[in-house]
C-alpha cells in the first residue's frame, strides 16, 4: 500500500526528520490560504500515487498566493497517468544547493533491509543505478542489529558527503530507518534530501510503501489508505479478502492462486483476447467469497465474458461451484461463462454446474480459447 507524499512526510516528521512547512489542499482557494500562511511563495505539488508527476507538470513553484491559487487550480484539473489529481500539497519553497537520494528498502536477494544513497538525488534512483552505478551506495542492514551509526557513516563516506553534514545526515538516516521498521514499510524514501541555502538538510519529498501483509499490525496506517486512488472494485474486493487488480480488457477472470491467475491472463492474451482483471479468490475459497468475486467482476462494464479457472487444492471445486450458482442467483447476467474445474472434489463441482448453462472446458488452452471466442461473439 502506497502512501502519499504528505502522509509519508508526516510520518517522517513524527520521528524527527526535518521537513518544510506545508499543508494539503483539495481546492484552489484552500491552496491560496495556505500560501498566504506560508508567506506567499510556495510549491504546489500534485498528490497522486504514481511516479512522474514532475514531468507531467504536477509540480509548480508559485511566486505569490495569487499564483498558488492559479497553479493549484491547474493541477487539480489534471489527470496523471490516468489518475485524477484530487489533492495538492502546498509547501514552503526552499533554496536547493544539493539533492541527495536516501532510501531504505527490502533486498529480496540478501533477505535484509538495504540503505541506498546517492549524491545524484532528485531523479529516479533506478535510472541513476542504470546509468551511473558508481554513484549509488548500498549498505545492507542486519535485521537483528538494525541500522548502526557506523553504517550510516559508511553511507555518508561512500557518497562523499562533507563531514559538516554527517551529524544531521546520521540523525535523518536513523529516523528514516525507524520509520521504515516501525511501519513495516517495504520502501521508505527521501528524494530529494536537500541541503538548502542555510546549509541544513531537509526532506523535500517522501515516499512510503507499506507491506500489505503487515497492515494487521498497524490499523492506524491502514486507515491512511486513499480510497479515491483505487478502483471501487478493488476496495470492494479487499473487504472480502480477494486479490483483485482491474485491467482494461474484456474477459473477466476468476482464478484460485496468484500464479495461475497471472497465467490465465497471459493465455487469454496469447489466444488474442484481453483480460479485464487479475483475481485470485485465494485458498479455501468459500461460496460467499466466490459470489462476491463474481459480483465484482461483473461490475466492470467492459466485461464480455467470464473465465473461471479453478484448480482445487485447499480450494474445493464443489464450494466454488456453489458460489458461482449463488452469485448467478443474485446477479442475473447475460455474459457468457466458461468454466474449468480441476482438482479436489472436481466431480461434485461439475455435477453442481451441469444444470446451469455454462460453457465447460477441461484444458486451460481450451478454456481460454472458448472465452476469447465468447467475448468476440458478444
Amino acid at each position, binding site marked *: 500500500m502506497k502512501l502519499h507524499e504528505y502522509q509519508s512526510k508526516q510520518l517522517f516528521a513524527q520521528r524527527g526528520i526535518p521537513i518544510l512547512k506545508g499543508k494539503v489542499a483539495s481546492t484552489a482557494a484552500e491552496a491560496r490560504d495556505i500560501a498566504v500562511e506560508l508567506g506567499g511563495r510556495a510549491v504546489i505539488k500534485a498528490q497522486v500515487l504514481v511516479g512522474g508527476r514532475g514531468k507531467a507538470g504536477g509540480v509548480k513553484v508559485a511566486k505569490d498566493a495569487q499564483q498558488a491559487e492559479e497553479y493549484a487550480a491547474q493541477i487539480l484539473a489534471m489527470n496523471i497517468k490516468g489518475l485524477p489529481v484530487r489533492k495538492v500539497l502546498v509547501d514552503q519553497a526552499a533554496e536547493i544547493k544539493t539533492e541527495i537520494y536516501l532510501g531504505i528498502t527490502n533486498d529480496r536477494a540478501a533477505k535484509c533491509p538495504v540503505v541506498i544513497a546517492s549524491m545524484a538525488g532528485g531523479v529516479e534512483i533506478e535510472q541513476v543505478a542504470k546509468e551511473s552505478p558508481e554513484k549509488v551506495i548500498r549498505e545492507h542492514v542486519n*535485521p537483528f542489529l538494525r541500522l548502526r551509526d557506523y553504517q550510516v557513516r559508511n553511507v555518508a563516506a561512500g557518497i562523499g558527503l562533507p563531514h559538516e553534514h554527517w551529524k544531521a545526515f546520521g540523525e535523518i538516516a536513523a529516523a528514516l530507518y525507524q520509520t521504515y521498521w516501525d511501519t513495516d514499510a517495504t520502501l521508505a524514501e527521501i528524494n530529494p534530501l536537500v541541503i538548502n541555502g542555510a546549509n541544513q538538510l531537509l526532506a523535500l519529498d517522501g515516499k512510503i510503501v507499506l507491506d500489505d501483509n503487515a497492515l494487521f499490525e498497524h490499523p492506524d496506517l491502514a486507515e491512511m489508505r486513499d480510497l479515491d486512488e483505487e478502483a471501487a472494485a478493488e476496495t470492494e474486493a479487499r473487504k472480502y479478502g480477494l486479490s483483485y487488480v482491474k485491467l482494461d480488457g474484456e474477459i473477466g477472470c476468476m482464478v484460485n492462486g496468484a500464479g495461475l491467475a497471472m497465467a490465465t491472463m497471459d493465455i487469454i492474451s496469447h489466444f488474442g483476447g484481453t483480460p479485464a482483471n487479475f483475481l485470485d479468490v485465494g485458498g479455501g475459497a468459500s461460496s460467499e467469497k466466490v459470489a462476491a468475486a463474481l459480483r465484482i467482476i461483473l461490475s466492470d462494464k467492459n466485461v464480455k465474458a467470464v473465465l473461471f479457472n479453478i484448480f482445487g487444492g485447499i480450494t474445493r471445486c464443489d464450494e466454488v461451484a456453489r458460489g458461482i450458482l449463488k452469485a448467478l442467483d443474485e446477479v442475473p447476467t447475460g455474459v457468457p461463462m466458461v468454466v474449468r474445474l480441476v482438482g479436489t472434489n472436481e466431480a461434485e463441482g461439475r455435477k453442481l454446474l451441469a444444470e446451469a448453462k455454462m460453457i465447460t472446458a477441461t484444458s486451460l488452452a481450451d478454456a481460454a480459447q472458448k472465452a476469447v471466442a465468447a467475448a468476440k461473439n458478444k
Partner: protein
Amino acid sequence: MSILVNKDTRVMVQGITGREGTFHATQMLAYGTKVVAGMTPGKGGEWACEGKVPVFDTCKSAVDSTGANCALIYVPARFAADAMFEAADAGVPLIVCITEGVPVQDMMRVRNYLDQKGAKLIGPNCPGLLTPDEAKVGIIPGYIARPGSVGIVARSGTLTYEVIYALTQSGMGQSTCVGIGGDPVKGLNFIDVLAMFEEDPQTDRIVMIGEIGGNDEEKAAEFIADHLTKPVVAFIAGQTAPPGKRMGHAGAIVEGGSGLASDKVKALEQARVKVAQYPEQIPGLLA
C-alpha cells in the same frame, strides 16, 4: 530417490487442531505420509485426526517424543514467525510453512535465524512438497501426481498443480514437486532446489515455474548455464501484468523497471532453457 521428503520423513504439524491443519493432516495421513506429531499450545495430551496423531504443547516435546524431522506450519500469519523459530530451536532440519501473509520484516529475521541454525525452510505462502507415492507434506493434491523422473520447482501453488496435472496426463511422472512460495523473502530458492535435482539420481528433467517480481529467475538462469547438466523447461507467469501492482503474491510485482517477465524469459532463453508460453505446452517441451 527424490529430494527433501520421502517415505521416511516424520512430519510434525504445527497448528494441527485448526480447521485447515486438521483437514490437510488427515489428507496427508490418507496419502501415507508419516504424520507423527501435532503441535498446538495448550492442547498437549490430546489426539488429532481421529486419534491418529498425538498433540504436544511445544515443538521440543513433540520432537523429543516422536523424532519428527520435518515441521509443517499451518498457523495464522501473526504466529508464523514464532512457529518457525520454535521448530528451528527444537532442532528440526526441514521446515515447511504453508501460511500466507507473513510480514516480510518477520521473514527477514526468520531467514537470518534459520540460516544460523542450519535449518532448511520451504515457503512461506507455498503449497509444500510432494514426492509421489512417498510423502505429501503440504496441500498439493496427491491424486494428480505419479512417481517419475521430472522434478518440479515453482513459486506458485496452483500453477504447480497445473503442471503436475499436465505432466501426469502426458504420462510423465514426477520425482519431487517443490512449491517454494510467492513471498519476496523466503526459504529455499530456485537455485537451491535446482542444485538438489541435479544431484538426485531419480530426476532426469526439471520444470521451473517462475513469475514476475525480483530476479530469482535471472539468477537461476545463470546457475543453470553454469552448473546444470539436466534439461530444464520453464514457464514465467505475468507477461500481461501491469507494473507497480502486486499480483496476489507479495513478491509478484514489477517495480522500478525490474522483475519483468520478459527479462526473465530472455535470461532463461539465453541459458538455453526452453520457455513455455502456457503451462500445457510444458510436457511437449520436455519430451
